[in-house]
């Protein structure tokens, strides 16, 4: 095949496994953003007793590498315990696929990040954290990494769109340096909520748009 992809990549791209949604999932994570072309949403069903991933599904708005990596990742993670699944990194997924072109590795990373984020979210919500780090400004800011402004395609932190982050009594307030009528206001707000709400001690997330109109 003259394409730069292995047969296995093409197989998973053309016939993705575990595609779709899970009704009432135990954990969800969304990674990426339409602005960077690739976006993936991962759903997990986890057995509370054994801590095994009993069901896993994904949806992707992405290129071939993204779809193929997500597909193989779901196959690799299904039936594993959370501890086992945590060890799945992009290198293993890449090996399993027979190797992606180097320029496409970042697409693979996104799928793996989604899996790890979903597991992390589950642990936060089910009291499984070994060390319960209380959410402070630093923790919150770390979770906002890779949130991208759809207009400029830049990370909101790097583009200085985050004016202020404040945490008090389980309430996180992320002030954005953007006007309320910003074209992508609701998309950004939703993404920020998805990042912060799963944290174990966070009860409420506020995302005010404080930029001038």
């Amino acid at each position, binding site marked *: 095949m003259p*394409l730069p992809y292995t047969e296995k990549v*093409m197989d998973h*791209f*053309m016939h*993705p496994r575990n*595609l*779709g949604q899970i009704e009432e999932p135990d954990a969800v994570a*969304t990674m990426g953003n*339409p*602005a*960077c*072309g*690739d*976006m*993936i*949403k991962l759903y997990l069903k986890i057995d509370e007793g054994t801590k095994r991933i009993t069901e896993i599904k994904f*949806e*992707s*708005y*992405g*290129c*071939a*590498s*993204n*779809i193929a990596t997500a597909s193989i990742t779901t196959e690799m993670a299904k039936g594993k315990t959370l501890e086992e699944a945590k060890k799945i990194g992009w290198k293993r997924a890449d090996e399993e696929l027979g190797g992606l072109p180097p*320029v*496409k590795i*970042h*697409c693979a990373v996104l799928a793996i990040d989604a899996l790890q984020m979903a597991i992390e979210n589950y642990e936060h919500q089910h009291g499984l954290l070994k060390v319960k780090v209380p959410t402070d400004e630093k923790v919150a800011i770390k979770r906002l990494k890779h949130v991208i402004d*759809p*207009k400029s*395609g830049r990370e909101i932190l790097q583009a200085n769109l985050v004016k202020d982050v404040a945490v008090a009594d389980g309430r996180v307030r992320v002030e954005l340096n953007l006007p309320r009528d910003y074209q992508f206001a*609701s*998309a950004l707000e939703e993404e920020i909520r998805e990042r912060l709400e799963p944290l174990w001690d966070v009860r409420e997330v506020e995302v005010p748009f404080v930029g001038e109109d």
Partner: protein
Amino acid sequence: MEQERIYLDNAASTRVAPEVMEAMLPYFTEHYAVASSQFSHTPGIQAKEALDRARGAIAAKIGAQPEELIFTSGGTEANNLALKGAAYANRKKGKHIITTKVEHLSVLHPCRSLEKDFSITYLDVDREGFIDLTQLEDSITDETILVSVQAVNQEVGTIQDIKEIGRICHERGVLFHTDAALALGWLPLNVQEANIDLASLSAHKLHGPKGAGGLYVRQGVKIKEMIEGGYNEFDRRAGTENIPGAVGFAKAVEIFKSEDSQYVQKLRDRLMERLLQIEGAELNGPKGERRHPGNVNISFRFAEGEAVTLHLDMKGIAVITGSACFSRALEPSHVLMAMGLTHERAHSSIRYTLSRYNTPEELERAAEATGEVVERLRQISPMGEPEGGR
């Protein structure tokens, strides 16, 4: 069993016409002497004559004199020679060059290297890819020596008003270069009428061979030689002339008729109409007469471009995308970005470029296949159908 392939990437390169192939063959097997041996032997004279004939035919097509046409290895070399050659030959007159943000990389990258000795203005374009003539006029200063604006855009097919640009440049006494690679044959192109001083041409965009192109240089316009060596091409471009290439180039120009353009334009409009019926489809670039007859560029919301092109390839259809996932620089199309479109719009853009060898049936199949692929990708997307999004 492989199904019949449908090739819709003709702005990248075209199939060599059978007539062109036939015209070239004797220059590989029988008349293979070099043109500079014209004073020593008969084969050399025959080679020189073939080269002269080819030069005359192509020059005549654009309203130029034969000695105003330099053969090059293609459009990229022509653009390099035009920009660097004209800039360095005229640097005593001034150090300012004007171009646009949507040029082909073979203009933009030479401009980037010229930045060390010249100041360059990159003109904006509007939502349809047109430059603003007032901005052009306002950008010309006493220091300006050269304006370079493409005739046709490679991605969205926008046709610039080169006559008006030529008039402005002529009035202000600055050189006007146009990258006419996608205009030659397809559109009327006359260097006199449009006051063009330098024009880059390419053979393989109109069913000629790859590795053949040319630069029109108006008589009296100085350019600095880039490739040094023997005394070929009026001492302006050294290297043994690609005679089969030149012969094929001339044949391709000769047989490309305006009816071909009209035929392709009809196909284009039909394809565009069919594709725009797909939910969430948005046209990139202008409509009608101000768009290249063979160009269709459409974004299908929530369907990532690289995934679309690969699926279409599985169905035997060759197209490209402006998505960052497709680009080797991992950046979305600089043309769509300059037009003020969102990253997302670029990521879901698909370019179909047609030729006279395409048939209505092929385009019907391409439109249908696109609809299926887009629908399939949306089904697996977390954003669902276009109406539900945003």
